[in-house]
């Protein structure tokens, strides 16, 4: 990790990293900075000539190229929006599509321009799918946390006001609800799809079980991807931040 800072630089590496912290791996529902996907940040020049170069890395050469594109282009947008930044280069290292993605991004070709016949529309629907899954997983965590305290709780009747205020699982659910546009008032039902659809009382248990499989998938993938990154890039553990406290359920220990 290198940072070249001149005396007059108006942009700090810290600001660039903070901007990168807003970029999320949609599948793992975590910032790329916490996952260790930021390999290097370099800031050079000053005044109008501030030049930022960021290198990203992923757990395998064969991570899905559509997700790779999302993160690389989001990173480029986020860094470009930092006040004072001039030229921005974001590159993805060691991926089977590195050359294609880096060239397409540098040339401003966009997703469809870069992938040509392989892309049909935009990645908006893909992104929306995983925003919905992030909400589903957060909902399941909040409800299961409650079930562990009181197995007799009537999950079908739960409203936001029944969830313990200030708990990380509750706060995380509220953030995910805001992201998908669901109401946040205390009377709003907890068990709900991102589009507002609610299960019937009889279907509530099944609904929650399905949500659980989503949560297990997100958490399991996050753990495995984090591990693979450290296998692929020895020392990258130091760049990872532990999974946040809003996901405390059933911690997935890792043995070597």
């Amino acid at each position: 990790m290198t940072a070249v800072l001149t005396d007059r630089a108006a942009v700090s590496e810290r600001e660039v990293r903070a901007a990168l912290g807003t970029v999320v791996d949609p599948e793992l529902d975590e910032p790329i900075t916490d996952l260790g996907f930021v390999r290097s940040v370099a800031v050079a020049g000053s005044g109008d000539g501030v030049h930022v170069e960021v290198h990203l890395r992923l757990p395998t050469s064969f991570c899905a190229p559509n997700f790779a594109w999302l993160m690389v282009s989001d990173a480029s947008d986020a860094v470009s929006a930092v006040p004072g930044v001039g030229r921005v280069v974001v590159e993805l290292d060691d991926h089977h599509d590195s050359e294609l993605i880096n060239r397409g991004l540098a040339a401003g070709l966009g997703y469809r321009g870069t992938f040509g016949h392989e892309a049909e529309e935009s990645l908006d629907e893909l992104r929306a799918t995983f925003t919905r899954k992030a909400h589903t997983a957060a909902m399941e965590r909040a409800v299961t946390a409650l079930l562990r305290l009181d197995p007799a709780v009537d999950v079908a009747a739960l409203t936001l006001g029944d969830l313990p205020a200030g708990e990380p699982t509750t706060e995380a659910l509220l953030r995910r609800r805001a992201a998908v546009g669901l109401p946040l008032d205390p009377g709003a039902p907890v068990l709900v799809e991102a589009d507002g659809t609610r299960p019937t009382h009889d279907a509530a248990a099944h609904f929650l079980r399905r949500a659980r499989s989503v949560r297990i998938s997100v958490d399991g993938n996050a753990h495995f991807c984090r591990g693979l990154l450290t296998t692929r890039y020895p020392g990258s553990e130091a760049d990872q931040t532990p999974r946040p406290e809003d996901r405390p359920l059933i911690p997935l220990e890792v043995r070597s």
Partner: protein
Amino acid sequence: MYSKDGEQYYVVDAHIALWDARPENQRNIHGKQFIDCFYDYHRNLSPESETWGYEEYLYQGGERLMRDVFVDGIVDHAVFQPARLAEFYHRGFGQTEEAFALAQAHPDKLTYNHYWDPRDGENGLEKLRENAERMQLTGVKLYTADWHGESRGWKLTDPMAYRYFEVCRELGIRNIHIHKGPTIRPLDRDAFDVADVDHVATDFTDLNFVVEHVGLPRLEDFCWIATQEPNVYGGLAVAMPFIHTRPRYFAQIMGELLYWIGEDRILFSSDYALWTPKWLVERFVDFQIPEDMTEYAPITTAQRKKVLGLNAARLYDLQVPEHLRLPEADETQTGPRDPAAADLATV
């Protein structure tokens, strides 16, 4: 056969390969990237005592395969599930003739499944007929993310793929193993999504669809599809070794599978040479759902026996000694198989 604490287990390794990823067979950088990715999986998920060096990981050969897979007589039968990867390797990744010859030499121990690709068109259909006759195929492995010229993936629902499924049905190739991967057109969808399995399973109810890696990284999508289709199975390739580094994650995977698809449709695999079967079988027989995971019922000995071999033996008509057989569970054909075992049963 594996024996422990007075119980005997008939073991089928439902997913093995005989690959050649040595530099002289690598067509381009992707050949190296692909095997390096496998090797990182291997290093990340293996116990230290079972971790191989990089050089030996590139190629094993038939003799070593027989030793590794059948050591101590634990595995009774294994099934080849080859990947072609012709764009990455000069002679392909899976070594067809070497593996097929091995299966011919050891018919009691090995079954050879081959592959097909709908992008090979009419010629591929002819080739499939030839291969089916020569290799006496009862199963195939399909890798939808395989590259092919300009194409980097296909869907099971492609019209040409349906022609191939029809030929499979005609020729008695009834076990269709499916491996989802990261590139498929259009890229703006989720390439790991198993929704196309749902369609073909409905349209070809007389074929068995085994989704490898139990759909990982889309376990939830797999469970949802599989619970609705009586002819969809879950292959534990790649999921098995989590039993060591991430036993609680493995417990959740097993808990979900038993809930959604039931004990009769889960197949053990080592994914050799990604991992070797011996330690996985030993661990699985000793494995139990942690007590604090009250959302799942404990795994029973009968369930372990089915997963380790009896389920795959049924698909491949393997002759299991009479005293080791078990009846199928009296479970519903579709929908959650064991809702009473869940923590939400009373909700």
